[in-house]
């Protein structure tokens, strides 16, 4: 299954310089492990999101390689140390090559 739904992200819109903020993300995806069989006994091929990338103003600060053991509708939480105002970009890469992105603005006071 390709990525089809809009990812959900939770990021504070403001932070103080030097503050460590938590970012939470959630995306709908079956994360088909390749271990299951259909009703006729044929194995269902693997189809997962294999990479999540978090960037701030274009610079990657966190990456996660997901394997088949990651649950369906993957949730990922992580941190970022705020230093300047700008924009987060989050990218989810599917096994089939498709990508989904989401972005959020951060203002550093």
């Amino acid at each position, binding site marked *: 299954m390709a990525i089809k739904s809009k990812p959900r992200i939770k990021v504070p819109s403001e932070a103080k310089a030097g503050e460590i903020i938590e970012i939470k993300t959630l995306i709908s995806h079956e994360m088909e492990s390749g*271990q299951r069989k259909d009703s006729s006994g044929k194995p269902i091929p693997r189809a997962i999101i294999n990479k999540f990338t978090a960037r701030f103003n274009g610079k990657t*600060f966190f990456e*996660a*390689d997901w*394997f088949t053991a990651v*649950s369906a509708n993957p*949730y*990922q939480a992580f941190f*970022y140390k705020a230093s300047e105002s700008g924009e987060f970009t989050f990218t989810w890469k599917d096994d089939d090559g498709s990508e989904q992105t989401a972005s959020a603005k951060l203002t550093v006071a």
Partner: protein
Amino acid sequence: MQLRSWTPSRRETMGLGLAAMLAATLAPRLVMATEEAVAAELKKLYGDTPMAPGKIKLDLPEIAENGLVVPLNVDVESPMTDGDYVKAVHVFADGNPLPQVVTYKFTPQSGKAAASVRMRLAQTQNVVAVAEMSNGTLYTAKAQVKVTIGGCGG
């Protein structure tokens, strides 16, 4: 009351031997991926670099009622400065069909080498985390999760 060391009788010795043989023949069939599979993955990544226990806090439920969604929180102790930070964290599950769970890559901008995800566990097993520091040293931590319903579609 009499105090003396216990010496097994012949019958007891045979019993012990049988139990050991049973354990040895049954054990490999009960696990899917094994500790060896995890060790092989680690060898591919880091060769024979020694690993010290510590620095990693693995936050996992002791008992997971549903193996399909097991919360996993990893937190590695580090100042996360340009000169001293956590580069990568690998998480493995030694009783799943495939041992890898997740690999994180951190940078000093991460602020904290911590992340949470939800994972599938096929059965009761050990979850192993390995953290690679910016200077190349490795740390490891291990925790057991008891799974009552497996997460492998079966």
